């Protein structure tokens, strides 16, 4: 009997240790293509993995100033694509991103970046008015506009589908993903910003990645 008890205790302790290790080291996956690169260090071959990253960019923000990757140095940020008079998925997506903005407001480790895909209408003044009315009153959430080629090009880098399409309501077709980018510019998560379950997971995962880059 005593033997069984000891065995059970050992099993319990080891499972607690195993479990606590795995839970404290929980990290978000890294998305996108990866390439192994071989190089020599002190005569030994070392293989590095090169991950898909978001390239540098320069867009006009809601204050009509240029916004580049420098703004996000050392920060985690969440990117998405929308337009101000979008009648379909955008309001729901922005309502959900607003939850994250309000939760982490004042935390300088995290920022938000909304790209307008309506390069014709959404000038900085329109974006400013939209941001104010949404309830964004600091620079932690950036709203940017750019040329069609630049915006649609960077959307591909975030793996979000965008297209000008006269056949859909509002004139632009796009996906409502909220994409988490880490300070190394790698994609760490993508969540459907119109799906309540995925938005809840998104909010949880932001805590996970913030813990990783404490």
């Amino acid at each position: 009997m005593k033997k069984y008890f000891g065995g059970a205790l050992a099993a319990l302790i080891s499972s607690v240790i195993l479990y606590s290790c795995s839970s404290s080291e929980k990290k978000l996956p890294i998305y996108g293509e990866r390439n192994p690169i071989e190089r020599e260090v002190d005569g030994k071959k070392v293989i590095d993995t090169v991950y898909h990253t978001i390239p540098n960019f320069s867009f006009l923000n809601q204050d009509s100033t240029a916004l580049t990757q420098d703004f996000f140095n050392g920060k985690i940020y969440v990117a998405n694509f929308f337009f101000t008079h979008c009648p379909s998925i955008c309001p729901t997506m922005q309502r959900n991103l607003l939850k994250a903005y309000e939760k982490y407001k004042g935390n300088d480790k995290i920022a938000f970046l909304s790209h307008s895909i309506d390069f014709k209408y959404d000038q900085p003044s329109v974006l400013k008015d939209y941001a104010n009315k949404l309830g964004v009153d600091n620079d932690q959430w950036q709203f940017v506009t750019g040329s069609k080629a630049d915006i649609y090009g960077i959307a591909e880098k975030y793996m979000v589908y965008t297209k000008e399409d006269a056949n859909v309501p509002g004139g632009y077709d796009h996906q409502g993903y909220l994409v988490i980018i880490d300070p190394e510019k790698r994609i760490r998560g993508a969540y459907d910003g119109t799906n309540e379950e995925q938005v809840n997971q998104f909010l949880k995962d932001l805590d996970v990645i913030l813990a990783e880059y404490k």
Partner: protein
Amino acid sequence: MIRRYFFACISLVSILYFLFSCNTDLSVETMQYATNGQKLYVTHCQNCHGAKGEGLGKLYPPLTDVHFLQENRSQLACIVKNGMSGEIKVNNTLYNQQMPGVPQLSAVDIAYVLTYVTTYFGDSKTHFKKEEIEEFLKNCNTQR
């Protein structure tokens, strides 16, 4: 002992009755209109106005202003069908954003969705009738 069980049962039944009787002041027909209207609301209105009619910031007005719903009762059908623009005051806050209409909705669809909005977010106890909506739509000011 049996008596005690009997009283317990009676009180349980009456508690349940009070709990579920909140909705009984709406007629079955009104409830049916509201249920049909909810589906249309989710498809055409919820993105902007929210699942609880709460609106979004100062972009999209909430649909919970009982006075607005009452005062503009005869205009609501036109707003749903043709959209609206210009400044409006809802819950003492000014809103000025263009709203697209949903022109494909029929009169009975509009009756459903307005019944949902006015009974769930407002305090209405009755439903909009199809004939009533048809009359409202004849008098729409298309200049809005």
